[in-house]
């Protein structure tokens, strides 16, 4: 007779759940300050989850963006000025410092290492660009026509130089956006001319900026002087034109003294046919270079290795982040449990009344569980709001990229609800297990 309740399904009907929830909300509202303080642990836990996920995603997004620009099939070789700038052994006190990659290296790489589809060397020098009275210190890159494809760079306006211009050693150039905006702030750059050391170059295109990475060390020094914000100013001209006009020795006056560097190639990009071969080819290249260059005057960058490294870093970051979030949610959960236990004791008589009026143990469990989940969930909502605000503030004030994925707030919120359930079960069970007679007698 008693076990067949025709209304049993109604206890869990939306209408009844809604009533239980509004009841729970009421008793939370009854103790506003207490509830707020209790939920605070969860608020901070959830906020830190959301914020750190956003920062982590931002960092990894930035890394991936950079790597995408460098090209995952590429191996990038750079010439680096050796730390002891005294010149090669045996060549005493020459004032011309000779270092870096040369055509012999390039030839050997092409001949001995299989699977390499192309090697594109380039030279980079630091010079002052003139447009009428305006000047700007920029790096001038001598490159081949396939440079934009190799570096995954797109043109914003105009075109890149072609094979004909390259073969004719034409005085044409492509400048990047930051150079364009500083040299031609009010007009379109294409068709204008730029003067460098007495030679005029016609601007035929504008290329998009390259992200944060400095191309070589010497150039980043040059840039720090020009003090521009954002990307470095760049001017790209045909490789042959650069060799004609600037030779292979680069002179520079620096704080009264004079030094000269002789570098054949500042940079070379090796494209490997298959992505799987990149790591092994890179190892071979490193081995070859280490034989040719007893001094460490080069640097090998393998974007795909950077990607792996970025993933590793992200994983470590995730573990750290996860532990911090777990600890704060644990603390928050314990706080909630503590208050709920106190609340159960405080409301012993109410529990007794409800039991006397026909509430089953499960009804009592549900009531307290709903209350805990509402409390934790409200904390979760506040935490998500706060957690969305923190990355925005960080991006705004610190200039760090943050990426908020849609799943991050959802995950953080569900974690808060889960915390509510996990830490609410015990107090709710305790409430339900009370003896109705004793509960009714409780003062």
């Amino acid at each position, binding site marked *: *007779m*008693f*076990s067949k*309740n*025709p*209304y*049993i*399904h*109604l*206890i869990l009907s939306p*209408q*009844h759940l809604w*009533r239980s929830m509004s*009841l729970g909300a*009421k*008793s939370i509202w*009854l103790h506003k300050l207490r509830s707020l303080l209790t939920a605070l642990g969860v608020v901070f836990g959830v906020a830190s989850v959301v914020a750190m996920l956003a920062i982590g995603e931002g960092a990894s997004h930035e890394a991936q963006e950079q790597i995408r620009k460098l090209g995952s099939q590429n191996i990038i070789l750079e010439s680096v000025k050796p730390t002891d700038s005294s010149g090669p052994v045996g060549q005493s006190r020459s004032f011309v410092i000779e270092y870096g990659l040369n055509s012999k290296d390039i030839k050997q790489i092409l001949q001995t290492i299989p699977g390499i589809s192309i090697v594109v060397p380039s030279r980079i020098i630091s010079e002052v660009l003139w447009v009428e009275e305006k000047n700007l210190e920029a790096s001038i890159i001598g490159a081949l026509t396939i440079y934009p494809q190799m570096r995954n760079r797109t043109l914003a306006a105009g075109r890149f130089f072609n094979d004909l211009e390259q073969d004719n050693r034409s005085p044409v150039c492509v400048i990047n956006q930051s150079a364009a905006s500083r040299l031609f702030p009010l007009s379109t750059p294409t068709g204008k001319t730029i003067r460098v050391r007495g030679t005029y170059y016609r601007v035929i295109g504008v290329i998009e900026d390259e992200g944060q990475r400095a191309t070589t060390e010497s150039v980043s020094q040059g840039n720090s002087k020009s003090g521009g914000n954002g990307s470095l100013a760049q001017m790209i001209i045909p490789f042959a034109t650069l060799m004609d006009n600037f030779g292979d020795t680069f002179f520079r006056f620096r704080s009264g003294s004079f030094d000269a560097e002789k570098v054949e190639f500042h940079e070379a990009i090796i494209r490997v046919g298959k992505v799987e071969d990149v790591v092994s080819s890179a190892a071979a290249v490193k081995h070859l270079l280490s034989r040719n260059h007893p001094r460490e005057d080069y640097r090998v960058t393998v974007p795909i290795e950077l990607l792996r490294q970025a993933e590793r870093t992200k994983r470590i970051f995730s573990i750290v982040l996860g532990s911090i979030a777990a600890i704060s949610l644990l603390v928050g959960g314990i706080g909630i449990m503590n208050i709920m236990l106190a609340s159960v004791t405080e409301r012993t*008589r*109410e529990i*007794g*009344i*409800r*039991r*006397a*009026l*026909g*509430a*089953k*143990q*499960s*009804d009592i469990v549900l009531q307290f569980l709903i209350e805990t989940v509402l409390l934790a969930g409200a904390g979760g909502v506040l935490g998500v709001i706060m957690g969305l605000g923190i990355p925005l503030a960080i991006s705004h004030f610190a200039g760090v990229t943050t990426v908020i994925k849609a799943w991050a707030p959802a995950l953080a919120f569900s974690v808060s609800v889960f915390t509510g359930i996990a830490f609410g079960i015990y107090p709710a069970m305790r409430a339900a297990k009370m003896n*109705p*007679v004793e509960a*009714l007698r409780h003062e």
Partner: protein
Amino acid sequence: MADPIIELRDIRKTYRMGDLESHVLQGISLSIHPGEYVCMMGPSGCGKSTMLNVLGCLDQPTSGQYFLGGFDVSKLNDDDLSQARCRNLGFIFQSYNLIQQLSVIENIQLPLYYKGVPEHESRAIAENLAEQVGLSHRLYHKPNELSGGQQQRVAIARALSNDPLVILADEATGNLDSKSGNEILNIFDELNRAGKTMVFVTHDERMVQRCTRVIRLRDGLLDKDEPGANANRTAVFEATMQH
């Protein structure tokens, strides 16, 4: 005679505290029929509270059988006992025991909520009962905004909301002044006249004057079982039942 609503067969209740056993109820057998208005009396410690807890399905007897509405409830598990309370019993307490966060109407609806009655139905029932006890104008007040007599009237409405077989009360007039006590007693009279079966634990002599049966307990045993001042009312009620 109609079948009894409550039938107790040799109910015993023993509490064990360490090595000490205290036999609170020592074999009580009695029947209560529809329409009876029973006052249960006795000196403190006679077991009448325990008796009320057993009758109210809040506590299980150690041995013996308890038939409520014809079904043995003495061996039910916790969930089924809750259901038995929910569907067959109405409680009225000395200290009203209303839930403070809930409004008058919500308090009256509470047993229906646990019974699973849909909101619109339970609301209609509760409004109707509030009117009967004269509290239609106080539906959205909180219990602490009401006087003692008003609170007890809410409790009565609540006890009636699930249309129980029996109303159980523990010193229902104990906290009230004589005027509001009388008002409450009048309501009980009306309910009994309408055929409600009621079992009240009381010390109130006025109640004895109005009831149909007085049961006196002493040391966990039935001491006296005698007709009350209105005993003939039950007879009249039973006569109408048989037609």
